[in-house]
């Protein structure tokens, strides 16, 4: 009788070690992923931001020269400095661009929420058999290139564009409106592009809501509007928060929309970044701009993650 028992113990020991290995491997995969796709590129950018601009290939100095051994490494590190970050604080273009980006992101998030919430609400209230079709219609624009869709808006919003033609034809205006190359065009472009990111999380939180909660609120003395305000809105809050972050975070760094639809007065950090890289060929300053942008974005991303975590905890 002792032997099978022993065998069981052995088996357990073996299984335990194997389990540890498997677990380590399982944990290692995402870390390797993170290291390769986020941390290494980030440190490269950080290193460039600490370098100086140079007319060479690559257009910055120092570069690490391992052939000179230890002195090459110390030499390399001694040449790194925070000069570019200091420069960002000295020229007011940068902080104005950051501030303007955040402002545009906030305003367009609110606009997207105002447009997206009624659409999500309508979808959630639609007959169940229609919902997949409506969902499809929301996602459909993603199947066309983003760039082409933004160009299409140029065709709509320009002085000779479809919008002005229709308004002139209807007699609402007598001279064409200047929309393209203004902040208005940027807002229209952002709201249009990011609308699905707002609609989908709000829709999913509204769709799960029990219809009888609204009836209960009415039964207890609420008007329809009051029931919406006291029950529907609070219950869709996680969806609203998720949608707002999903729109705001990428919009802060948005580049294509302001450069195609915005005018010379539209100041966004994505555009500044692009100009530093490709017009000025000042990689170190551009990298410094990118590092600061990342630090600014970390705050809403952490808040977003916390919201998501709280929601999953509440659901358990």
């Amino acid at each position: 009788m002792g032997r099978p028992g022993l065998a069981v113990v052995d088996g357990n020991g073996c299984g335990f070690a194997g389990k540890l290995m498997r677990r380590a491997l399982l944990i290692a995969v995402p870390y390797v992923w993170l290291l390769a796709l986020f941390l290494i590129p980030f440190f490269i950018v950080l290193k460039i931001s600490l370098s100086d601009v140079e007319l060479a290939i690559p257009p910055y100095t120092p570069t690490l020269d391992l052939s000179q051994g230890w002195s090459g490494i110390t030499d390399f590190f001694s040449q790194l400095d925070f000069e570019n970050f200091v420069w960002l604080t000295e020229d007011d273009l940068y902080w104005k661009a950051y501030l303007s980006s955040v402002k545009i992101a906030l305003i367009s998030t609110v606009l997207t929420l105002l447009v997206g919430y009624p659409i999500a609400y309508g979808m959630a209230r639609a007959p169940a058999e229609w919902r997949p079709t409506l969902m499809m219609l929301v996602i459909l624009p993603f199947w066309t290139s983003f760039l082409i869709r933004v160009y299409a808006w140029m065709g709509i919003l320009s002085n000779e564009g479809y919008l002005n033609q229709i308004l002139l034809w209807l007699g609402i205006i007598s001279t064409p409106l200047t929309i393209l190359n203004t902040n208005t065009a940027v807002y229209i472009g952002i709201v249009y592009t990011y609308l699905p990111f707002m609609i989908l999380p709000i829709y999913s939180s509204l769709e799960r809501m029990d219809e009888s909660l609204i009836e209960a609120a009415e039964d207890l003395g609420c008007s329809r509007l009051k029931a919406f305000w006291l029950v529907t809105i609070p219950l869709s809050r996680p969806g609203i928060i998720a949608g707002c972050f999903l729109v705001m975070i990428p919009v802060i760094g948005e580049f294509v929309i302001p450069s195609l639809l915005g005018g010379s007065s539209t100041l966004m950090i994505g555009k500044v970044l692009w100009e530093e890289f490709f017009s000025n060929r000042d990689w170190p300053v551009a990298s410094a701009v990118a590092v600061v942008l990342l630090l600014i974005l970390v705050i809403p991303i952490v808040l977003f993650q916390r919201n998501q975590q709280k929601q999953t905890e509440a659901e358990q």
Partner: protein
Amino acid sequence: MPFQSDRRTGAALNTNVFAPWEDPQAKPLIQFQNVTKRFGGFTAIDNLSLDIFEQEFFALLGPSGCGKTTMMRMLAGFEKPTDGHIMLGGQDIDPIPPNKRAVNMMFQSYALFPHLSIWENIAFGLRRDNMPKRDLEDRVEEMLRLTRLEQFARRKPHQISGGQRQRVALARSLAKAPKLLLLDEPLGALDKKLRQDTQFELMDIQEKTGTTFVIVTHDQEEAMTVASRVAVMDQGKLMQVSTPDRIYENPNSVYVADFIGDVNIIEGRATANGDEAYQIDWAEGQSPLTATSSTGFSNGQSCHLAIRPEKVTISADRPADAINAVQGKVLDIAYLGNLSTYYVELPNGTIIKAQSANTRRISRRSFTWEDPVWLSWTATAAVLLAN
């Protein structure tokens, strides 16, 4: 069930019987006046009239799709009658929206607001009335005490058990002291044991608050236990409205007899045989059965004899004094613990159920499969029904 019948309707024990429906002077709290409700081509409620009195515990009982939930939703104001009127305290309530009615509802899903604490859930309706802070707090505390939820006041609905949620839903719907409380399958989500305890709690609370309760249920046992009167519904019509004991003992149709409890239905032709007594010819080669009935039957009229299984006696030999006795053999036995139901097959293929209490240990059971047995019942045991 017997406990309930004694307390509410037992004339023998209580001289002051609560039975306003028998008093022609009594004014009903709720009146359905020829109410019809159609959804498109489907008629959910079909020209229905019904009076419900103050302080009643009224049960709407029926299979799913019979219209009982529609009745309740019309009382709450979520549906409007297509035809006819619903009166509450003499006032036509059809044009009044749900948030203005002195009616509250306890939802089947409980519909507790998940983002609010138990305390805030109960206070929700009171806040809509702009009740002064002190009164509001007192009222919420009172409701918490009534439903024994004091220690859960600060919790959220997902942090308490199903039975507690049920009590929160009840407290919330009672907080505004409605004239009428509607309960939609209130105990459906609870397990059997908790359901039984909660039934008595519901009755207690109903008596303490003096509120009129209308309960919708498909569980006949629940309806019988809690209600002062039961309305059995089918396809948008009321089949019978009466006290639980009368519904059980004197069903007015085969449908009601069959829906409430277990029953044997024997079809035959009635022939008058003395005062209020009838002889029923029901099968070739079988001696006729005898039953009494206060409703008249013409000779040769087809009829149905409804006999409850517990009123059928099973024995090995033919009882000497039995008025109705048939012979058969035991086809099946359903053992329910306290009771056993014997399925006895007669020579012509008819199956009759007989129920008897298991007063002896199962190993000493008198009858087993294939045993030849005699079934007998008295003339008054069965109810004679026309349809």
